[in-house]
């Protein structure tokens, strides 16, 4: 389990339940590594501001993370973390490698609306 304060997605079942229960979802799929940690921290900070978005993480190396690793939107990705934004259960955006907080909020604002 990742050492963050975010909601942890531990299985494909969790993933499905999360998407079913929430209209707007951001999942950061990574490890406790230098490119991923800043993204988790940005998400933890944003969690209080974007109450209409569910922020979660998923361990990249867990077998069930194939639900994210194998997404067509992530096919060309070769840098951690893989971050996927879902609206109504559908992928609306996916990013690879570290993202600055401003890049994240731009995506959140564009796809989920401003806080």
């Amino acid at each position, binding site marked *: 389990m990742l050492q963050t304060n975010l909601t942890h997605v531990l299985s494909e079942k969790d993933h499905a339940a999360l998407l079913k229960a929430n209209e707007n979802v951001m999942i950061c799929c990574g490890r*406790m590594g*230098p*490119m991923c940690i*800043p993204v988790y921290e940005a998400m933890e900070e944003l969690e209080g501001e974007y109450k209409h978005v569910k922020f979660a993480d998923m361990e990249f190396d867990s077998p069930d993370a194939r639900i994210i690793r194998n997404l067509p939107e992530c096919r060309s990705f070769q*840098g951690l973390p893989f971050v996927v934004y879902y609206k109504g259960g559908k992928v609306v955006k996916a990013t690879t*490698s570290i993202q600055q907080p401003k890049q994240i909020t731009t995506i959140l604002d564009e796809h989920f609306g401003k806080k």
Partner: protein
Amino acid sequence: MDTQYDVIVLGGGAAGLTAGIYLSRARLRTLILNEGATGGQMTLTHEIANYPGVENISGYELARRMRSQAQKFGCTVKSNLTIAAMDLTGEIKRVLLDTGDAFTAPAVILATGGKSREIGAPGETEFKGKGISYCATCDGDFFTDKEIIVVGGGNSALEEAVSLTKYASKVTVVHQFDHFQAFEHYVVEAQKNPKIRFIMESKIEAFEGDEALRSVKIRHQQTGAITTMAVDGVFILIGYVPNTKRFEGIVTLNGAGEIVADAGMATSLPGVFAAGDSIAKRYRQVTTAVADGTIAALNAAEYVNAKKKEVKAEEVL
């Protein structure tokens, strides 16, 4: 309306957090404003094994502990924000966020750290995370049995080139000079590794591909000859640049863009101190950042307390 503090610290890495600990423990109202994530470059280190008194700790955990320690002493820490403007020239310094929130203080500590240096060649942004990486330990396993390039000639570049041979079938080190800056033992280890070859006196001119990186154009510095090399990944490990662009023309910077600070961490502007990786110095370690942050905080505290005494004396008169 502006919120007043005694000291504003710009940057929440090792230097900034240490300054926050010292200042808030000295009962000074202290605000840390951090545009990135807490910990700065410290969080880029998987394992810190040379922090005195701590045998082994991840950079992430050390950063979390420092932040918590600062907050316990009463320091306010705000991260992941955007500074819209600042005026550091007057007696009272003012920092404005893009949210419209403004903060003032008689002293400021610049501890904005550094970031990975980029090559600046066409395609670099486009293929970041799609073949281009700045972290070998993060992304090395995506290139198992693939051919990669490591750009750089310093300790990190050569150490990671060797490390990446665990995954890659072939590693080509591309370096702009005819010699390496790395310590001799890193050079020797890389040179004796059969999976590593070297292209010296050369720079990458462009990154090319479709949905992922496929090739690079390499220019030889002496002859100007350009060759195209098919490659699956490129790791750019050419050091760091200080986050000081916004201080140009405000405090004195050296030719490398680093803040020039004296032994007391004072900059060219009264009431403005600096610490950590953003200042001109030779060694950049967590321990040196912590030392800088301590010195900057103690001198900023002295400066602020002297200012308070001046105000009190004027009131008496």
